């Protein structure tokens, strides 16, 4: 039939067009990806002073984490624009990270810069980043920043090249015996509790799990409402990837660091999954009891992240297991309103009352993979690196993390950077900070931590004089009662065990690693069952069913694989 012939011809044409169009973006993507850098050819010779004003350029940046883009008229960012010529257009994550990132990878449509966050593994495995090995030595500040840790940067990628530059963890110390006063506040996982609850209990420190919940119960009975709203004694957030609030406590209760989904025995490096172990059971049993007593509101499991932040910002959540950065946006509303008694401190809760360090350990350098990268489709890799290099200049860095001298801080007779109470109050207000500070920018790029060469702190919040003087009256009195310097002192400090936190191994695992599907299954099972276990009428039965399902998963293969990778990384560390 002629008709059929015509049709088949048409289909052939269609197919050819399809092949061509399908290949085109990949082809171009590949060619930029393999572009070899030619050192010395960059438009701006690094290290030499610029005579002329740099050409304006705009980089797009996706950040795989929460945040808000600064307004265009932010005074600091404007200044940095004048210095570098670079404008950064931020896109922060909204909604589900895995899906957002998956779509980005599938389309090959990358921004110039990528704040990899928890999605580092997805980006690495998809080959989204440009390798920076040959570029780094050309940028003196960046090179100084990363040179001691090149192996760690390389260790996380499938082909052992540098793709992600850590933005946290590179600290500069003067070793003059005063360094410890410059450490930042503890930001990691812990049982966080409102200061007022502790103050009401005579400034106690309930490090025993039973005491902790007992205190919540007593306080709740005495204060059924806060500011007219019902009190929520304990929140268990469990949405999407933030379900670490639900799951990660047991590892710390027995003294472990934040490894994610496994516990590592420090001496033998044996790895074990813990969501089905006794310490997990004891913990969830406690939560089940708390639920039955009404200390955990059932809606805690159905609240989305925004609603979670909302109830925290209302000041009516007494305690939760979380990482500080995850609920910070809710807490900073309380700080802005001056409700310091409703802000939180970490407690090192354990089963027997021994205070546990949680994730407070003296880190020895960067982890590797905890940062940002330059996408292979970036319009100008050298300019981007030049920009990052400039941000590490102490003057520029001070601009970002302290502000403008005379406006945001002053320098006293001893050359110390100081702030007036008003200047600090401004800074504590998140809205002000977004519009007037460079922190939003700096946080997404490699940064200096610790102390500048002149001895001042690298960021305003950790300047010791200030912490003592400008601490609000409530906090001053509160910490005095304990004889503490700040909230971190609630937790004992532990030694760096010498291998990277295991979650970073998980998140950079290659796609076809055998542990990957097992990990997905385990995550799925936990997210699906644990809320039900906590809310169950018959805890033992619910737990038994959950553990039985756990046994259907070949989690031992995962334990072995993780153990193997830890041993591999030990040699680099």
């Amino acid at each position, binding site marked *: 039939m*002629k*008709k059929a012939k015509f049709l088949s011809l048409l289909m052939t044409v*269609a*197919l050819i*067009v*399809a*092949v061509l*169009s*399908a*290949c085109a973006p*990949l*082809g171009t993507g*590949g060619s930029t990806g393999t572009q070899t850098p030619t050192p010395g050819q960059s438009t701006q010779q690094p290290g030499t002073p610029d005579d002329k004003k740099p050409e304006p350029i705009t980089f797009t940046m996706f950040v795989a984490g929460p945040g808000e883009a600064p307004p265009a008229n932010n005074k600091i960012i404007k200044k940095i624009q004048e210095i570098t010529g670079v404008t950064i257009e931020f896109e922060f994550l909204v909604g*589900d990270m*895995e*899906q957002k*990132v*998956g*779509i980005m*990878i*599938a389309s*090959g449509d990358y921004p110039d810069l990528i704040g990899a966050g928890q999605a580092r*593994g*997805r980006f690495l*495995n*998809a*080959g989204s980043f440009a390798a920076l090995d040959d570029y780094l030595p050309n940028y003196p500040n960046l090179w100084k920043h990363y040179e001691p840790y090149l192996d760690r940067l390389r260790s996380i990628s499938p082909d052992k090249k540098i793709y992600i530059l850590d933005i946290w963890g590179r600290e500069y110390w003067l070793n003059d015996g005063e360094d410890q006063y410059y450490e930042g506040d503890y930001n990691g996982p812990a049982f966080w509790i409102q200061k007022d609850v502790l103050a009401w209990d005579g400034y106690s420190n309930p490090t025993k799990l039973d005491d902790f919940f007992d205190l919540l119960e007593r306080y709740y009975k005495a204060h059924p409402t806060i500011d007219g709203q*019902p009190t929520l004694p304990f929140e268990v957030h*469990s*949405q*999407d990837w933030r*379900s670490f609030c639900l799951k990660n406590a047991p590892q710390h209760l027995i003294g472990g660091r934040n490894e994610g989904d496994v516990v590592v025995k420090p001496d033998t490096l044996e790895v074990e999954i813990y969501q089905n172990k006794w310490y997990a059971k004891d913990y969830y049993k406690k939560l089940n009891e708390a639920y039955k007593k009404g200390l955990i*509101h*059932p*809606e805690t*499991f*159905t609240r*989305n992240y925004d609603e979670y932040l909302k109830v925290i910002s209302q000041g009516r959540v007494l305690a939760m297991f979380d990482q500080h950065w995850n609920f910070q946006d809710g807490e900073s509303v309380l700080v802005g309103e001056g409700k310091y008694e409703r802000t939180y401190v970490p407690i090192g809760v354990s089963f027997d009352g021994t205070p546990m360090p949680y994730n407070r350990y003296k880190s020895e350098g960067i982890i590797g993979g905890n940062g940002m990268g330059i996408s292979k489709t970036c319009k100008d890799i050298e300019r981007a690196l030049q920009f990052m290099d400039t941000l590490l200049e102490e003057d520029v860095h001070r601009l970002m993390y302290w502000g403008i001298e005379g406006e945001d801080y002053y320098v006293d007779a001893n050359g110390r950077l100081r702030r007036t109470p008003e200047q600090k109050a401004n800074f504590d207000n998140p809205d002000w900070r977004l519009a007037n500070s460079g922190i939003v920018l700096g946080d997404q790029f490699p940064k200096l931590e610790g102390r500048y060469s002149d001895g001042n702190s690298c960021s305003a919040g950790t300047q010791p004089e200030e912490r003592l003087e400008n601490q609000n009256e409530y906090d001053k009195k509160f910490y005095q009662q304990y004889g503490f310097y700040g909230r971190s002192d609630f937790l004992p400090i532990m030694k760096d065990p010498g291998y990277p936190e295991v979650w970073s191994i998980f998140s950079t695992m290659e*796609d*076809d690693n055998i542990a*990957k599907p097992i990990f*997905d299954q385990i995550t799925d099972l936990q*997210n*699906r*069952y*644990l*809320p*039900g276990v906590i*809310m169950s009428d018959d805890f033992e039965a619910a737990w038994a069913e959950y553990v039985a399902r756990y046994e259907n998963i070949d989690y031992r293969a995962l334990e072995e694989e993780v153990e193997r990778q830890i041993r591999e990384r030990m040699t680099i560390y």
Partner: protein
Amino acid sequence: MVTKSLNRRSEFFKQARKQKSLILISIPYFIYFFIFSYLPLWGLTMAFQNYKPQLSFFEQEWVGFKHFQNLFTDPDFYRVMRNTLGMSLINLTLSFVTAIGFALLLNELTGEFYHFKRVVQTISYMPHFLSWIIVCGLVSGVLSMDDGIINELLLKLGLIKEKIHFMGKPELFWWIVGFTNVWKSMGWNSIIYLAAITSIDPCLYEAAAIDGYGRFGRMWHITLPGIKSTIIVLLILNAGWILNAGFEIQYILGSNGLVLDVSETIDIFVLKRGFGRSGGFAFGTAAGMFKTVASTVILLLCNKIAAWLDEERLV
């Protein structure tokens, strides 16, 4: 093309010339569908590969039907199919019954109630224009235990002793979805039935009134048979969508561990597996392909059944 002359080619061009303007008019549509409906079909090849986005098409590893095998042996797949079909049936039944019922009731408002009818109709289809994210916000607010109006109401009426955690009860989830759909789309769906009703010959009503039928009699014997063909066409159309139980509402309201088992539809499954897990593009594509093929089969089947019943058909 009835004649099978030797010179069919010239015949073809002759006809083409005659229909020149028609062909010209159809070109933009042809291009549109080619680009947006046919070209993407190429992506289905992913379902048969061990697809890795960083490799070019020729570097991909072909794995045959492996992903389909995985799909059909995946217990989660049967769970999401159950959810999809369950919610679809509830949606379909509720939305049909309410939309038709609403149209019938509105139709009875005549004469002095005419303005009231217009107001009711306008208000009733307004929710159709709200985005799901807003609707879901409203639903979770209304059903909240904190200060949700439903819980307050039931409590005040003495119907319940303590507040119900609506959003955390798996057995309620499908119904919440169903009734939210009703609220959102009942007014909109009824428009088409109201339009169909206006085409019924008024003489029939007069005749029925003379024969002694009351309001309900006329509804049952005149109005409903009058819009029967519309109902069946819409039923066939909607049956083709039976695997589209929705996406947004389940995704927004059902993503917590308590109701996840009953909330995930096939669309969410495709999204989560396809984009949510590394290396899942191929598996997600296979699942999506299954859905498309199954939907087409169901649509054709419904069409056959309609033909068999000697009713209106689509194709």
